[in-house]
Structures are given as C-alpha cells and as structure tokens.
C-alpha cells in the first residue's frame, strides 16, 4: 500500500481521520502526512506495537516527533533478528511521491521485549492514546493472549475488528463494556480501508478531541 493510494482511498471513502499504524514501526507516517497535506484528511501518526506477551496495542500519537520518539524506544526493544523478505515480504520505506527511500531490515513482524503495561506507559508518557487491538480476535489480542484484560492497565479504548459487530463483541466478552469501544478496519490492503469505521462527536479531527470523545467529556462522545 503506497501512502499516496492510501490517502486517495481514504478521501474516496469520505473519511475525516486515518491513523497510520504499521507494525512496530512508523517509518511511512511522514509520507502519509505529506500526501494528506492540503486535503481534508487528518493523519494521526501511530504504530501497532506487539508487547512481550504478544498483545497488540495501537498507539495514536499527538505528532510526528512523538511517534518517532516512540519508534526509537521500540527499535531498542525489538526481539533480535533480521527480516526474511522471502517469507515476510519487503519492508519498504517510501516518500510522498511513492519513491522508495529504503528498506527496513528489522524483524518488525516479531514482538518487542516490553511487557504490555510498559508499552501503555511509554505511549502515555509521550502524550499518546493506547488502544488494545482487535480484542474480539483470539490471536494477538489482549483477551486471547492474557485471558482477560488485566486490572489497572490504563487503556484508553478497545478496538473491535471489522469481522465482529459491537453487539456481538459485547455479548461474547461482557468485560469489554467497561471500556470505550471503537471499530476500525485494521486495513492491510487498499480494499479494506473504511470497511469498518468509528464516528465521533468532536470539534475537529485532532488527537486531543479524540481523547475527549473516548472519555466522554466536554460534550464530546463516540457516536457509533
């Protein structure tokens, strides 16, 4: 997925906000932000981090600097190893013109060495939001890996994948009702962009407004 086509597809689908969340990396966030400049689309710099327990956590960060700082910390704590392109494919870094600028040789598919509580803390200390990914799935979800959501883990929201409806998820996992819930597409291919979305009642498409909507404060809310 080239950043150009990702952004074009988001605009065709009439989205207002997209979060770019590569696995344990944010190298292509810059290009996406640059492509989306001068459009109505707000790009939230993010990352999907795999904790030591192999729980996936989405980090939504306030700005580019914050996501780069988070990426530095993640790179220092990746499970050692090099990507095998014949198995996992190329990890291409591109610019806003879809030109290849380099290849990421790190084993990004793997987990980090950081416990999930540490991942959440590191996101929060940089002003970001920590959202547990696809909690309705068995693999790489906090409920699948850890049986249930650990108490005292300050998650900002839980994400329901596009394969499950909100009401199905609530029926299957009653504990999730205690958290703000969002749906998103987890799109790995262009066709999946916008397959599942969330609507927020906010003043503008910024991370600060999203945070208020998740908390349900100052008149901001999750609509659906």
């Amino acid at each position, binding site marked *: 997925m080239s950043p150009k086509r990702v952004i074009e597809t988001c605009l065709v689908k009439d989205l207002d906000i997209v979060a770019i969340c590569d696995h344990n990396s944010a190298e292509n966030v810059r290009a996406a932000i640059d492509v989306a400049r001068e459009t109505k689309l707000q790009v939230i710099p993010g990352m999907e981090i795999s904790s*030591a327990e192999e729980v996936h956590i989405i980090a939504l960060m306030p700005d580019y600097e914050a996501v780069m700082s988070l990426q530095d910390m993640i790179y220092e704590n990746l499970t050692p190893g090099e990507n095998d392109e014949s198995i996992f494919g190329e990890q291409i870094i591109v610019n806003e013109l879809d030109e290849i600028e380099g290849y990421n040789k790190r084993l990004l598919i793997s987990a980090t060495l950081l416990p*999930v509580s540490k991942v959440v803390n590191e996101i929060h200390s940089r002003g970001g939001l920590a959202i547990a990914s696809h909690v309705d799935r068995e693999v790489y979800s906090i409920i699948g890996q850890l049986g249930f959501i650990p108490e005292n883990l300050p998650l900002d929201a839980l994400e329901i994948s596009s394969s499950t409806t909100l009401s199905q998820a609530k029926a299957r996992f009653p504990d999730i009702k205690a958290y703000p819930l969002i749906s998103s597409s987890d799109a790995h291919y262009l066709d999946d962009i916008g397959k599942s979305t969330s609507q927020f009642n906010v003043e503008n498409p910024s991370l600060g407004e999203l945070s208020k909507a998740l908390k349900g404060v100052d008149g901001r809310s999750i609509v659906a």
Partner: protein
Amino acid sequence: MKLSEIIKKCNLHVVCGEDLEKKEVSGGYSGDLLSDVMANSKKGDIWITLQIHPNIVAVAMLKELAAIVIINKRMPEAETIKKAETEGLSILTCDMPAFELAGVLYTMGVRGKT
C-alpha cells in the same frame, strides 16, 4: 504425584510456594494463550507456559491448577510473584523448553486429560 517429586526429578527452581510435598499434581497442560488455558486446562494440572504476566496467577487460581512452570529460564514479573505469594500459588521455573519438560513429565507418568 507429589509436586515436590516433580520439582526434584525435573530440576525445577522454586520461585514461590509452600508445602510443596503436600501438593498433588493430577495432570498436565501446556499453553501460552491464556484464553485457551482458561478453556481447556483441568483442576490439578501442572501448567507449562512461557507467559510471565500477572494474569497467569488469576488463571491458575480460577482453574485450580496445581502449579505453574515457566520455561526457558524466564523469570516471572515482580507483580506476578507478589500475586502468587498472596494466593499461596506455586510458581516454578525451568531451564528446559516446553517440549523437553513435557517429555520428561510424560515419562514420569503425568498425562494431559482429554
């Protein structure tokens, strides 16, 4: 089989737990997806895992497992040990990988239940 006998024969290290010679092991289960362990382990099982998160204590208590063995020389998180001590749960560690440990336990007569 007594837990103390397993500890001795498998060369396990005791992180926490008391009265090990009184604890009875009636079977075994191996798994790192805690949702699966909650669904399929049985009361009295010795549980082999690489997970070190505090949630393993809650799962073991819920399922009334005999003990947890953490493999590959991994150490549980500090919070995990604290919770296990509060609950009186035995946590052991092992230098072997899960496959080897399960093999040794099997030859000793410990079986998984279906």
